């Protein structure tokens, strides 16, 4: 109580810096790969934050989050493939994804949110497995294991000139081409920002307090007059809707949708790791977790390659730091993070305020 909210301030400061970096990413990091990373971070922040609404705020454990992500992605992908590039298929795809997600979420929710948490988790796991198998079997629609490649709306084509100079060439600002790729990135950034801010509002609303009450003591929340099953089903639907929209945004950005980009359990595990590393029940944790894990996935190998070269003359060390062993080191980093930040980075740092 004495020295205020320094930990919370620090976390908010870090999140603000991350937001600023993402906002100016195309101008700060001008290679293609960096922009891929920045867009992926934006999408995963939304995906992880929507999962945090379930696990961190309400205490619901679900393994079907990538399923909802996939519905949104495949909705847009299938329609963009069938109808050709344009905004109508994107909008219809988003709506279809949300509609299917809502139907599934209501069905799973009403059938099983009354039962024990472990049973609910199993049901979501089963549903997600079925959808994964269906996606690979119904290859005439989904492209099976190969996925679907399609064209994004014209605005996002790299050849599109947002502004052109007197010669009809694409205008440059700080040496960055104002082309369709840039528009596409800002489409991702802004839609993700809107979704994240909306979720932040949810958590600070009366509804958010009820969710926390359910996490803390379900029976008492019911006893003071809250219909717990209704609230849990609602937040499950809300979270599914946001995950589905994130899927649509990702599909438009990637111009490719397949099991590996939007449905696989590997993504589910990434989401779980991000929410645990960042810190559950804070929203800020989603930002920090998503940034750390995506960066590690993209850059740890490069970093290790550089490190291995630097110590090339030393025996054994180059072998240990061989880029092929990046997963091993990633694992060690996670174990250390969980050991030193048991409530996740944001959770642990912010909890310090309460005890001091």
């Amino acid at each position, binding site marked *: 109580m004495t020295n205020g909210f320094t930990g919370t301030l620090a976390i908010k400061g870090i999140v603000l810096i991350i937001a600023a970096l993402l906002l100016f990413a195309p101008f700060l990091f001008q290679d293609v790969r960096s922009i891929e990373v920045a867009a992926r971070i934006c999408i995963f922040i939304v995906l992880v934050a929507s999962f945090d609404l379930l696990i961190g705020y309400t205490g619901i454990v679900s393994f079907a989050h990538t399923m909802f992500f996939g519905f949104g992605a495949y909705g847009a992908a299938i329609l963009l493939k069938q109808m050709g590039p344009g905004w109508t298929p994107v909008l219809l795809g988003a709506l279809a994804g949300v509609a299917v997600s809502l139907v599934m979420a209501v069905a799973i929710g009403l059938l099983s949110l009354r039962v024990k948490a472990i049973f609910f988790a199993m049901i979501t796991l089963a549903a997600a497995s079925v959808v994964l198998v269906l996606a690979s079997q119904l290859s005439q629609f989904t492209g099976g294991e190969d996925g679907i490649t399609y064209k994004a709306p014209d605005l996002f084509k790299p050849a599109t000139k947002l502004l052109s100079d007197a010669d009809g060439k694409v205008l440059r600002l700080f040496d960055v081409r104002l082309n369709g790729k840039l528009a596409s990135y800002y489409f991702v950034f802004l839609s993700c920002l809107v979704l994240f801010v909306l979720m932040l509002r949810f958590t600070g*609303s*009366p509804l*958010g*307090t*009820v969710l926390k*009450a359910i996490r803390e003591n379900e029976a*008492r929340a019911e*006893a003071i007059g809250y219909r717990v099953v209704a609230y849990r089903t609602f937040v499950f639907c809300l979270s599914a809707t946001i995950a589905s929209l994130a899927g649509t945004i990702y599909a438009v950005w990637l111009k490719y949708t397949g099991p590996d980009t939007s449905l696989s359990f590997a993504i589910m595990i990434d989401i779980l790791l991000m929410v645990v590393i960042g810190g559950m029940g804070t929203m800020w944790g989603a930002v920090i977790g998503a940034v750390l894990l995506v960066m590690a996935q993209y850059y740890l190998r490069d970093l290790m390659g550089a490190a291995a070269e630097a110590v090339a003359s030393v025996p054994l060390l180059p072998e240990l730091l061989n880029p092929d062993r990046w997963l091993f080191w990633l694992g060690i980093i996670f174990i250390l993070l969980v050991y030193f930040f048991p409530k996740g980075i944001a959770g642990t740092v912010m909890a310090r305020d309460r005890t001091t």
Partner: protein
Amino acid sequence: MTTPSLVTQDLTIRFGGHVAVNAVSCAFHPGELTVIVGPNGAGKTTFFNLVSGQLTATSGRVVKDGTDITGMAPSARARQGIGRAFQLTNLFPQLTVLENIRLAVQARSGDGWRMLRQVTAQRGLTAQAETYLEATRLTAVARQPAAALPHGDQRKLEVALLMAMEPDIYMFDEPTAGMSLDHAPDVLELIAGIKADPTKTVLLVEHKMDVVRALADRIVVLHNGELLADGPPAEVMSSQIVRDVYLGTSGGAA
């Protein structure tokens, strides 16, 4: 006599072969404080659970102001005006004291589904919550998580949660259990205050005889899940059958 606010008719619950509450028929009236007594395992808390909805009766009915609430979920009964404080402290441990109370006030206001308005903007609800903290003398610890409070303050918060629900029927399950002597009078004073309101019905499970004597308008005795005696305190306490089973004086010539 006024019309009863709460009636149980042949209320029964079986757990396998064991009948925990057996055909209890009882009517409770506004402005009346009924103390429910009985030895351990008599079915007092189970009876409470049947009324507030944590358990559903095997047979029989619970009627509140003419509405049959037997099959309703606890949340629906709470909205019907049945409020319950628990014997084992049953709070929202990681939320602050103020947030705990605010939740009960908010449940009554029906604002739980609002998702775009911010809690910080709802000053009215927070101010209302603060009045209950003042009444229970918890204002000083308002910003602390409930789990960090000493036991006595947790018991007071348990009572404050019930008061913040503003129910018609107040159900206290051993509200002073485990409380130190300097805390208990605060709680008893609060209950006496509620009792003074002629529109409120109070049910109280209590073991301490001095508390029973000070507060009871009426005593109901449960024994092995059955209603053994029901009447004014003096009458019930002096009846031989109650002395036998409850006060432990074994039957026989004295």
